[in-house]
């Protein structure tokens, strides 16, 4: 109940913000009969109505995990974010190894296996991407290759 009410309220808030954003869309000198703002207004409106409906007629709450599990999901998010930010400066190999190992550890807390998985995945996938598919991933990034 509560979850859906929150979802509904969140949706309404975002939909209103979206409509507010849409009022700021520049109209060019050559405007067509429908215009640039109509569709965003309609979409925002439909979303707000759905949000209201969901808030008033909520489904049963899903079974949310306990706080420990939430913590682990949060950690996984952080691992992914750090990975995206280190990929450019440090290249693929080292960030990928660390991120895969960390994620592996979050799924199954056995350090040695996690490290092995990290190193293996990093090297294996680098080989597949670069030599197999011809995609150019930088192995070490600008800090190491100079």
């Amino acid at each position: 109940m509560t979850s859906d009410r929150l979802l509904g309220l969140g949706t309404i808030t975002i939909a209103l913000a979206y409509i507010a954003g849409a009022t700021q869309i520049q109209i060019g000198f050559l405007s067509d009969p429908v215009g640039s703002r109509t569709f965003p207004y309609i979409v925002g409106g439909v979303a707000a109505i759905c949000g209201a409906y969901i808030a008033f007629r909520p489904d049963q709450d899903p079974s949310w995990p306990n706080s420990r599990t939430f913590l682990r999901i949060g950690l996984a998010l952080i691992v992914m974010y750090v990975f995206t930010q280190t990929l450019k400066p440090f290249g693929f190999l080292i960030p990928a190894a660390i991120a895969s190992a960390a994620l592996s550890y979050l799924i199954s807390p056995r350090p040695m296996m996690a490290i092995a998985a990290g190193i293996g995945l990093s090297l294996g996938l680098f080989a597949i991407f670069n030599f197999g598919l011809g995609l150019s991933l930088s192995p070490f990034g600008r800090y190491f290759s100079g």
Partner: protein
Amino acid sequence: MKFYSRKGLMAGAVAGVLAVTGPAFSAECIAPANPGGGWDFTCRMIGKIMYDIGVADKPIQVTNMAGGGGGLAFSHVVNERNEDAELIVAASSATATRLAQNAYAGMTADQVRFLGAIGADPGVIVVAADSPYQSLNDLLDAVKADPTSVTFAGGSAAGGFDHLKVLMALGRAGFNDVTAVKYIGVDGGGDAITQTIGGHTQAMTGDMSEVVGFLAAGEVRVLAVFTEDRVPGFDDIPTATEQGIDIVSVNWRGLYVPLGISDTDYRKWSDALAAVAASDEWAEAMVANGLAPFTRVGDDFQDYVNGVILEIEELSREIGVIQ
């Protein structure tokens, strides 16, 4: 670890298939759009010929960097690759149009060096074969009499190059109410011509290369080509100028390089481009793709681009696309 070793095997097998290649490319050509468009063609074709005729010792790697109508690649070059001597970037009239209309978030044409153009796609106005409009003036007169009676279809958004060509032609014919002209931007010239043959729109504005096949099949009539002289191979298509509408507009295909490279490197690239322009392979590619010869390389080209940008800027301000 069973899975992993299998993946390794797979990678080995794949690598075996592709053993001839490797990521050992040196020079890079950025096509600022997804594969399949004109910029992509420019990079792939010029890159291929440079390697084939031996002015590049390794194949030139093509990178597609779509975003912001070329703006993402432009800012990438300006901000991150300004001294990269091994980089060329595909450009066309659309690049100049967007720079003139300040569509690249404040970046300007003098932040890169234009290298050269080695072909041009003449602008055309096309109607379906069964259309009542027989000449450019028939069509323009119809718009003048009742702007709602004609919808133009083109491959660029409103205010883009294809649209501007129509407005310029109408302006030369004495019709200046630009907001009354009906224009729809569709997904490329091929789409625009399909809509016109289908009778959903009355005329198509685009480039010669986009209509060649339909012209040969007798599905369309080209009312005018926007070149100074008639295009070789299409001698029965009149120019706009000879019909009294003084407009010359071609979509050139060319390249720019980062501003920070040395004059030696700039000359190395412009010599390579000139060699491509002179090659038989390029001549063949131009014929197959409906391009007209248009070779301007080096500083001469830089002057030309500056002139074009000024002209579009003026026109865009005149009709209100920019303030």
